[in-house]
């Protein structure tokens, strides 16, 4: 089964259970990369349906302070894209994994080689925050060939024509950015997120998940009433940073994820 097909199957199963998807984000290399398998294990056990693994980049312009700091810690620990892929080759994660990051990482690795290697180690797709459809012909071809899903971002500022293209070209799901801004926990889910999701759903049957600023079970619950899933990043990254050194960190992460997951079933 290709990565795309695995993601399709995941959303289909969720629909069958009348649940939204809980999509969890963590930075590879924060905590140290050798703990990533345990982190993924705890996320999956807690109930995450899909996990996005952040590939740290030195200049993360789409990220707020929490993920920036996490990326820098990961880079200081010497985390490289090669080491991340190597680590994933030894993990058998029960939920689909996506790699999330910035285009220069892929470009430097070699797009063809990156996609091939990612697919080999069981990654289902990618999310590139600074890759917009009109620049990405080559990447679309490469990811299609390797079976990787190409999750595209849609923003509240995207024009109808852009939403057409995004809905048509995205695979796996469309990442609806809840607000103009960078990643980071916020107090509420803005009304424009709902509008964006319905605009996207009117265009294609690709699932739509909402992220940026989603940090509490209430947000997840709200979002799952109008979208296919909710994406939680900064909250989990901050939690791992605060609790990662405690002996019970895995249980604590599982509990947090379980609380977030429960909200997708409401």
């Amino acid at each position: 089964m290709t990565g795309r097909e695995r993601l399709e199957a995941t959303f289909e199963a969720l629909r069958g259970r009348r649940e939204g998807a809980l999509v969890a984000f963590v930075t590879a290399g924060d905590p140290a990369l050798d703990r990533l398998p345990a982190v993924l294990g705890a996320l999956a056990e807690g109930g995450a349906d899909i996990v996005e693994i952040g590939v740290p980049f030195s200049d993360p312009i789409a990220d707020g302070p929490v993920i920036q700091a996490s990326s820098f810690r990961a880079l200081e620990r010497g985390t490289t894209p090669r080491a991340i892929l190597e680590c994933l080759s030894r993990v058998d994660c029960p939920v689909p994994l996506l790699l999330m990051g910035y285009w220069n990482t892929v470009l430097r690795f070699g797009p063809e080689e990156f996609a091939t290697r990612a697919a080999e180690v069981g990654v289902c797709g990618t999310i590139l925050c600074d890759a917009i459809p009109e620049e990405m012909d080559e990447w679309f071809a490469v990811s299609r060939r390797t079976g990787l899903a190409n999750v595209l971002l849609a923003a509240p500022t995207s024009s109808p024509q852009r939403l057409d293209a995004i809905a048509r070209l995205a695979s796996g799901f469309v990442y609806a950015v809840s607000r103009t801004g960078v990643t980071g926990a916020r107090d509420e889910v803005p009304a424009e997120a709902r509008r964006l999701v319905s605009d996207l759903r009117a265009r294609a049957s690709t699932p739509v998940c909402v992220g940026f600023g989603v940090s509490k079970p209430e947000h997840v619950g709200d979002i799952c009433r109008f979208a296919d899933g909710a994406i939680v990043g900064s909250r989990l990254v901050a939690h791992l940073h605060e609790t990662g050194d405690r002996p019970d960190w895995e249980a604590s992460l599982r509990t947090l994820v379980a609380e977030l997951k429960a909200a997708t079933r409401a």
Partner: protein
Amino acid sequence: MVVPASGRFGPYGGRYVPETLVPALDELADEFQRAWADESFQDEFQRLLREYVGRPTPLTDCPRLSEATGLKVSVKREDLCHTGAHKINNAIGQCLLAKRMGKKRVIAETGAGQHGVATATACAAFDLRCEVYMGEEDCARQELNVFRMRLLGAKVIPVSSGTRTLKDALNEAMRDWVTNVRTTHYVIGTAAGPHPYPYMVRQFQSVIGFEAKRQCEERYGQLPDAVVACVGGGSNAIGVFHAFVPEEAVQLVGVEAGGCGLESGKHAAPLNAGSPGVLHGSYSYLMQDEHGQVLPTHSVSAGLDYPGVGAEHSYLKDIGRVRYVSATDDEALSAFQQVSRLEGLIPAFETAHAFAALFQPGLFRKGDRVMVCMSGRGDKDMVAASRLLQL
């Protein structure tokens, strides 16, 4: 040669930005095209360049510097622009556009502080709210400019992330823009960034080269043999080069910051020692490691202390039209003193790199007529210079 619609210069340029920003970039590209072709916009822009900035800036012959270098040196005096550097040409143009687009808030990044000062100045004159991102390290080494910006009514936001220099100021400004894109125009201060910035900034700065070309023809009855400019992001260089690019007989030389020397790795010379990659929304030469992480830079000059470079320079390098060299901190500081003593012209540290090329062997033939773009004056660097030089 250049395809403004796609924003590519050969393979370089493009747009690598969060989706949220794309509509604003489209709007900006459209509005710029319309404005640039609009006589009333041009009239207003030209009037401001004349009456507010003080253009045309003079071309100054430098007899003593000529004697010291064995060249015929003249200098295009962007240091005499209002606020003391070429940056104001672009800041005025973009702030006029911001007004046209109905955006009342303007943000900018700055390294040496000259672009921040220029933007703060234009915002004061046009009644726009202005916030400037500046790396903490640059705030310290260019403290006079921090005060100037505040005096002009701008808010200066020190940036403590990453390397705390120009690169991170740009990152923070981009993050602000993603957040406030509906109400805010981002005035990028150099010929880098996503389309349409490299093209638009070049157009606003091209007045430097067009004026200089006319001045050379009038005074010497011929074009110079060579034109030299320092290259940070590349706005003064592309501004002075643009008019001369089709004149194949004119040698064009861009001077990057060699820092402690290219072999030391402590420099800011992506065209000399980098490789193509994506930073700040554009594909261009970049200082990066084997994993695509952007490398820290070093230069005595805050305005050149940047790991990337404008896309058009990457293209001009690849096709061999411009020769890109570098000057070390020491060479720049030496030229800084020479030009001050020989001509009574105190250049900015950035500009001192361009002058340093005049002293490098093998670049020019004896007797060549060489025009240097004096991108800015050195007042802002007096505190740093007094620490670095024992006089």
